[in-house]
C-alpha cells in the first residue's frame, strides 16, 4: 500500500448528510471480482443522466473540482452496507483523503485498510471547508505526521488512532503484521478450542 505522509491536493465538496454506500457505488456495479476499475461507477446515479451524459448539476461534475483528491462531505458519510467497493471506487476515482464530521464505522475502517485517510473534523471546520470549496478551487495540505489540515486562512488539527496513523504512514499490510503473532493465535486456539463447524 502507498504510504500517506503529507497529502496536498484540491477539494471536492459534497454538502449532503447520510451519504450511503448505495449512492457511492450502486449495487449493479458490485459484480466484478477485481478490486480495481470501480472509479468509473462512483456516484453513478448522481453523476450521470439517464442517457449517459454527465449531470451538470452534480457536485463532482463542477469544472473547479476536476482532479480533486480530497472529498469534504456532511455527517454520517458512508452509512449502509459493508461493501468495500465504496472506498475502492473513491480511491480509484482519485480520492486519498475524506473529511466529514463523522463516518459510519465499517466505511471508516474500510478506508483505512485501503490507504485512504478518513478525517473526522468538528462540524464548524467542515462547514468552512464546504463554503470555501463550493465555488472555487480550494487547495488543502493534510499532514498526517503532525495531524494538521491547512488551507488559505484555514488551519486546524485532527485526531487519529495512533495504530492506524503508523499503518498509514508506513503503508503497512495488516495481514503480514498479524501473521507475526502466529504463536499467540495458536496458543489462544489451544486454550479455547473453537467449536468446529
Amino acid at each position, binding site marked *: 500500500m502507498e504510504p500517506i505522509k503529507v497529502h496536498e491536493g484540491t477539494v471536492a465538496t459534497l454538502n449532503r448528510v*447520510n451519504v450511503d454506500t448505495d449512492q457511492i457505488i*450502486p449495487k449493479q456495479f458490485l459484480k466484478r471480482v477485481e478490486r480495481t476499475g470501480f472509479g468509473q461507477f462512483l456516484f453513478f446515479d448522481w453523476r450521470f443522466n439517464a442517457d449517459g451524459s454527465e449531470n451538470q448539476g452534480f457536485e463532482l461534475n463542477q469544472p473547479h473540482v476536476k482532479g480533486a483528491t480530497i472529498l469534504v462531505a456532511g455527517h454520517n458519510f458512508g*452509512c449502509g452496507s459493508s461493501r468495500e467497493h465504496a472506498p475502492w471506487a473513491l480511491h480509484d476515482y482519485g480520492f486519498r483523503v475524506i473529511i466529514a464530521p463523522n463516518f459510519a464505522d465499517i466505511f471508516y475502517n474500510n478506508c483505512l485498510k485501503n490507504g485512504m485517510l478518513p478525517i473526522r473534523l468538528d462540524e464548524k471546520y467542515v462547514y468552512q471547508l464546504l463554503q470555501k470549496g463550493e465555488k472555487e478551487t480550494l487547495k488543502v495540505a493534510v499532514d498526517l505526521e503532525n495531524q494538521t489540515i491547512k488551507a488559505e486562512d484555514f488551519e486546524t488539527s485532527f485526531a487519529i488512532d495512533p495504530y492506524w496513523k503508523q499503518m498509514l504512514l508506513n503503508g503497512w499490510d*495488516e495481514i503480514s503484521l498479524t501473521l507475526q503473532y502466529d504463536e499467540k*493465535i495458536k496458543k489462544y486456539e489451544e486454550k479455547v478450542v*473453537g467449536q468446529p*463447524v
Partner: protein
Amino acid sequence: MTPKTIIEKIWDQHEVIQEEGKPSLLYIDLHMVHEVTSPQAFEGLRIHNRKVRRPDLTFATMDHNVPTVDRYNITDQIAKTQIETLQKNCDEFGIDVVDLEHPENGIVHVIGPELGLTQPGKTIVCGDSHTSTHGAFGALAFGIGTSEVEHVLATQSLWQSKPKTLEVKITGKLAEGIAAKDVILAIIAKFGVDVGTGSVIEFTGDAIRGMTMEERMTICNMSIEAGAKAGLISPDQVTYDYLEGRQYVPSGEAFTELTKRWSTLATDEGATYDRTVTIDASEIEPMVTWGTNPSQGIGISKLVPSPEEATTDADKRGIEQALEYMDLKPGTPIQDVRVQHVFIGSCTNSRLSDLRAAASVINGRKVASGVRALVVPGSQKVKKQAEEEGLDQLFIKAGFEWRESGCSMCLSMNPDFVPEGERCASTSNRNFEGRQGKGSRTHLVSPEMAAATALAGHFVDVRQLKEEKKMTS
C-alpha cells in the same frame, strides 16, 4: 467481581492480544462468506501465497446474486462469474459451501441461525453489514469489509478497538398486532441513523424478553441502520429452546454443558453501559418509512412530515431531498400513498414466522389490481417448510408470486427490481435512493403491513384490515 455487560464478557473472552492504547486482536469463532464481498479477498490470499487458517470455522453460501425464478439459469454473466468464483475458491481453500442445489442454501443471516451455526458467546463476522442479525443469540456479530474478510481468512482474527456500549431499553408491553419490525423502525425513527456509531447495542427490556428468536433477529438485523457496529440480546431459555436439536448444535450431555456456559453470558445485574436510551413499547404503532433513510419513518396514522419540522439546517435539507426523491408532499396521510410493488423477503423478514404473519392477513382477499407482490423465502428450508404448511398456496391464490430463496429485491442485484419512479412496500432494511433499482421508491414495513398494503393497494393499518375481516366473517 465488577459486573459486566454481555458485550464486555464476549470481548474479554476473545482477546488474543491486548496492549494499552492499541486495538485488540480478537479471535473469530465463525466466518460466513458469500459471493459478492469475497472474491477479492481470496485473490489477495493467492497473490501472497497464503492459506485459510481455519476452513473448519468458515462457511459459505450464495445469496446476493441468485435469481428467484429459475435459480439454475443465471443470465447475468458477471453475476454468474461471481457465483462460480465462490465455488472455485471454496474448493481450492477447503471451505464448506451450500451451493444453489444444496437444500440448505439461503440468505447467509437466515441459514446461520437455522443450521445452529450461530450460537451464544461466539464472535461472528461476515462481509455483510446485516451480520448483526446473529446478535439475537447473544453473539458478538458484525459486518466487515473485504480487506477484513481476507484478514480473517488468513489469521482467524481481527484488530478491533473496543466499542462503546449502548443499551436500548424497550419498556412496557407491545400493543396487539405490533411486529418486531415496527419496534426497530420506531427505535431508529426516534434515535436516528447514527445513534449507535462506535457502539454495540444491547437490546433489553420486557418487550424483548417476550419476543421469539425470529422477532429478536429482526430487531438485531437493523442495528446497523442505527449506525451500530453490532446489536445483541442476552441469551435466555427462548434462545436455548430454539437451538436445541439444530444441525450444528451438540446434543445430549454436551448441550446441557453448553447451556450452562451460555447462561453465564447475560449482562450482570448492576453492569453499566456507556449510554442508555429508552422507548416505551406501548406507544409504537405499525410503521412506514416515507423517506430515503431508515430513520425517516412514521406511524401508519401519521402524515408525511414537512421540512419545517426539522431542528437543524442539515436535517431540513435531508427531508427536502428525501421528499423530492420519494415524490411526496408534506401533510399527505401515509395511508393515501399507493404502491405498485410489494416485496416480502430479505434477511430482516423472510423467516417462517414472517411468512406466516403475512399470510394470516390474506383471509381470502386478493392482491389489488396494479400491484405486483413478491414473496421470497429466506432459505430453501424456509421455502420447504412454508410449502408443507400450504402458505405458498395461500399466497399464490391471493395473487402473490411465490419465489425461490435469496436476497432478491432487498438490493436487486439479481433480476428482481422496482422500475424507475415506482413505489414498493418492502420488508427489507434499507430505503436508500436506488436501492431496489435506479429511481425506485422504497417504503419499509413489517411483513403484516406489506401483505395488507398488497391487498389494499395503498398503505393501511393492518390491525383495521384484520378487524374488518372479523366483522364480516
